[in-house]
C-alpha cells in the first residue's frame, strides 16, 4: 500500500540547501510555524527529576556525574539548545565537549563541515564551540519569541526544520551522521526507507541511547551493534568496554567506585520491539490537526499524545473511548512506576553496600565483582527510567528490564553482605546508615544540592579521595 502523506507534490522552497535558521521557514510555512511555536508553551511544570515526587534516589545512583546535580523534565524542541546551555551539567563542567551539541542545534552539520568529523565532536564546549556558534548564528542569541512573549534563547538554531527536512524540497531526511552510521552497522538500507520508516527515523536521530566514542574522536555513537533491545545494547556496551581504550561508561561512581553506563532516552529502541512497532512516532506525536478552519497539517508540537487522544489515538482506536484509553495508559504507567521506584531503591542500597566493601577493605576481586553487578543492575533500571514514556512504548519489554535490574542489584547486596559479615561488619548498622542517608537526600530541599547529602562520613567519596 503506502499512501503519500501530506504534500507529496514536489516543493521548492527557494531556500538554500544548507539553511539552518528556523526563522527562514517562518513565512514559507506559516501554519507549521504556528504549530511549531506551540513548543514554546510548556505542557508541564519543569522541575528536577530527583524531586521526592518523582525519582528521589537519583542523586545517589548517579553520584559523581553531572546528572546527579541537575536533570530536568523536558520542554519543547525550541528550548533544546537553551536548556542545554543553562544546565549545570554544562555550566559547571569546563571540559564539556561539542558532541553534546549534536542533538541540540541545526548548526551541527555545519560544525562537522567546518571542523571535520575528527574535530567537530571533541571541541571544548565553552572555549571553542560556543565562540564559533556565536559568530555563525549571531551573538544576539536568536531570542525567538512567540505570540505570548515566551522567549527561547538560540531558538532559531534549536532542534528545527532542517533537522528533519531537506530545506529545499521539505522531504524528510536524516541530517545527523550518528544515525546513518548506526544504521550502517545494522545493515539497514536507509536510502530506501519508506515514508513510514522516515516518520520514526527522524526522531531516532536523537531519541536514542548514545555514548561519545573515545576510539572514534568522541563522536556521538549508538550502541547498536547486536540489536536494539536493552539486553542487546547492554551486551554491545560491554563489548565496547572490553576493547582496548574502548568506552567504559559515562562516569565512575563516587559511592561504589565502578564505571557506570548512563542511559539516555532510548525511546526509539524500546518502541522498536513493542506493541506499537508498526506505528510511527509521528502517528502519535505529530497527528494531523486542523489549524485554521479546514486545513489539516501535521502537528509540530511534540508533546504528550495524552493531550490529543482524539487525533493521536482514536484515529486507530476508534472503537475505544477516550476514558478507556486513558485508563489503559495509566494502568500500564502506574505498574511501571512502581517497579521503577523499587528497582532504583534497591540499586541505591547496592551502591552503599559496595561503598562499605571498599572502606572496610574487603578483597579487591570481590569488590570488582560487586561493582559489575551494580553496573548491570543500574543499566537495567536506567534504560526504562531514561525512556520517557513510563513504559507505554513497550510495557513488557520495559518491565522485563526491571526483573534483571532487581536481580542484579540484589546479587550485589548479597555478595557484599557475605564479604562484610566475613570480616565482622554489622549489617544492621549499615542498613540503618543507608536509611538515614537516603532520608537526608530526600529531605534536602535544594534539588542541585541533594547529591551532596548522598556522601557523608559513613559513606565517603571513594573515587576522588
Amino acid at each position, binding site marked *: *500500500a503506502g499512501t503519500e502523506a501530506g504534500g507529496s507534490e514536489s516543493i521548492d522552497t527557494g531556500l538554500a540547501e544548507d539553511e539552518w535558521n528556523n526563522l527562514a521557514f517562518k513565512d514559507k510555512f506559516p501554519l507549521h510555524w504556528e504549530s511549531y511555536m506551540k513548543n514554546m508553551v510548556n505542557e508541564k511544570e519543569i522541575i528536577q527529576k530527583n524531586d521526592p515526587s518523582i525519582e528521589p534516589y537519583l542523586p545517589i545512583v548517579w553520584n559523581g556525574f553531572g546528572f546527579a546535580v541537575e536533570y530536568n523534565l523536558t520542554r519543547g524542541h525550541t528550548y533544546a539548545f537553551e536548556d542545554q546551555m543553562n544546565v549545570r551539567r554544562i555550566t559547571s563542567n569546563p571540559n564539556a565537549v561539542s558532541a553534546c551539541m549534536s542533538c541540540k542545534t541545526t548548526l551541527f552539520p555545519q560544525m562537522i563541515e567546518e571542523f571535520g568529523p575528527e574535530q567537530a565532536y571533541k571541541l571544548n564546549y565553552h572555549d571553542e564551540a560556543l565562540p564559533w556558534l556565536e559568530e555563525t548564528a549571531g551573538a544576539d542569541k536568536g531570542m525567538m519569541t512567540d505570540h505570548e512573549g515566551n522567549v527561547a534563547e538560540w531558538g532559531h538554531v534549536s532542534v528545527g526544520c532542517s533537522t528533519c527536512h531537506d530545506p529545499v524540497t521539505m522531504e524528510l531526511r536524516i541530517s545527523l551522521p550518528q544515525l546513518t552510521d548506526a544504521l550502517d552497522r545494522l545493515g539497514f538500507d536507509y536510502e530506501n526507507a519508506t515514508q*513510514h520508516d522516515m516518520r520514526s527515523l527522524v526522531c531516532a536521530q536523537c531519541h536514542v541511547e548514545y555514548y561519545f566514542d573515545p576510539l572514534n574522536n568522541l563522536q556521538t555513537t549508538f550502541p547498536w551493534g547486536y540489536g536494539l533491545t536493552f539486553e542487546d545494547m547492554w551486551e554491545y556496551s560491554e563489548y565496547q568496554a572490553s576493547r582496548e581504550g574502548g568506552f567504559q561508561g559515562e562516569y565512575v561512581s563516587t559511592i561504589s567506585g565502578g564505571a557506570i553506563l548512563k542511559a539516555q532516552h532510548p525511546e526509539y529502541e524500546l518502541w522498536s520491539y513493542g506493541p506499537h512497532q508498526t506505528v510511527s512516532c509521528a502517528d502519535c506525536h505529530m497527528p494531523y*490537526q486542523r489549524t485554521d478552519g479546514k486545513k489539516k497539517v501535521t502537528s509540530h508540537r511534540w508533546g504528550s499524545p495524552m493531550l490529543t487522544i482524539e487525533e493521536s489515538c482514536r484515529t486507530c482506536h476508534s472503537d475505544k473511548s477516550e476514558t478507556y484509553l486513558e485508563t489503559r495508559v495509566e494502568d500500564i504507567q502506574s505498574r511501571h512506576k512502581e517497579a521503577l521506584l523499587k528497582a532504583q531503591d534497591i540499586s541505591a542500597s547496592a551502591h552503599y553496600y559496595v561503598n562499605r566493601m571498599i572502606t572496610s577493605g574487603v578483597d579487591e576481586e570481590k569488590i570488582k565483582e560487586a561493582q559489575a553487578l551494580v553496573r548491570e543492575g543500574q543499566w537495567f533500571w536506567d534504560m526504562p527510567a531514561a525512556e520517557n514514556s513510563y513504559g507505554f512504548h513497550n510495557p513488557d519489554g520495559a518491565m522485563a528490564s526491571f526483573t534483571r535490574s532487581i536481580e542484579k542489584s540484589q546479587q550485589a547486596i548479597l555478595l557484599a553482605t557475605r564479604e562484610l559479615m566475613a570480616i565482622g561488619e554489622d549489617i544492621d548498622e549499615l542498613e540503618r546508615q543507608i536509611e538515614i542517608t537516603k532520608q537526608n537526600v530526600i529531605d534536602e530541599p535544594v534539588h542541585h544540592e541533594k547529591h551532596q547529602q548522598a556522601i557523608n562520613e559513613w559513606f565517603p567519596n571513594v573515587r576522588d579521595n
Partner: protein
Amino acid sequence: MREKVKRLDKKRLLLVLIGVFLGIVVFAGTSATMKATDSGEFCSSCHIMNTAYETFAASNHATLSCNDCHAPRDSFSEKIVFKAKAGMGHVYMNTLGSEKIPDVLHATAESQEVINQNCISCHEPSLQNVAHDVKDSCIDCHRQVPHMNGDFRPAEWFESNEFFFAEPGKKQGKE
C-alpha cells in the same frame, strides 16, 4: 468525476452539492444521479474523505460503493431521505460549518446502525449457519472492514521478518 469536482471552487461546490442533494429529494433523482452520488469517487471529492476512500479502495469491498454500506438499502425512499440528510450535513460542515469539523471522523450512532444492517443484508446467506450475533456489531470482530486496514504501512511490512532490521546486524555482530 473526482477531478471535475476538485476543480470547482468552494462556493460553486457548495451550490452544486446543495443542488445535487436537494435534487435527490425533490425529484427523487434519476438512477444516474443516485449512482454517482453513491460512489467512492464522489465521496472522496472532499479532502476529509480521503483516508476513508483510500483504505476502502484497498479493501476486499472495493467494488462496492460507499452507500452500499452508508445508506439504508431496504427501501428507496428511506435511502434518499437519509442521503439528503447526511449529505446536507456533510456539505454544511465542509463549507459554512468548517470550523466545527472534527479532526478525526467517527461514524455517528445512526450511521453505525445503518452500516450494520447493510452488513447483515449482504451477508445473510453466510450468517444463516451460525448465530453470528454475539457482539454489538459486526465490526467488533471485523474491525478493519473496510477501513483502517493499515494502509500506512509499506508493502514489505507484510513480510515482517525482512523488516526486523535489528536482526541482520545481530547476526553479524554476535556470530
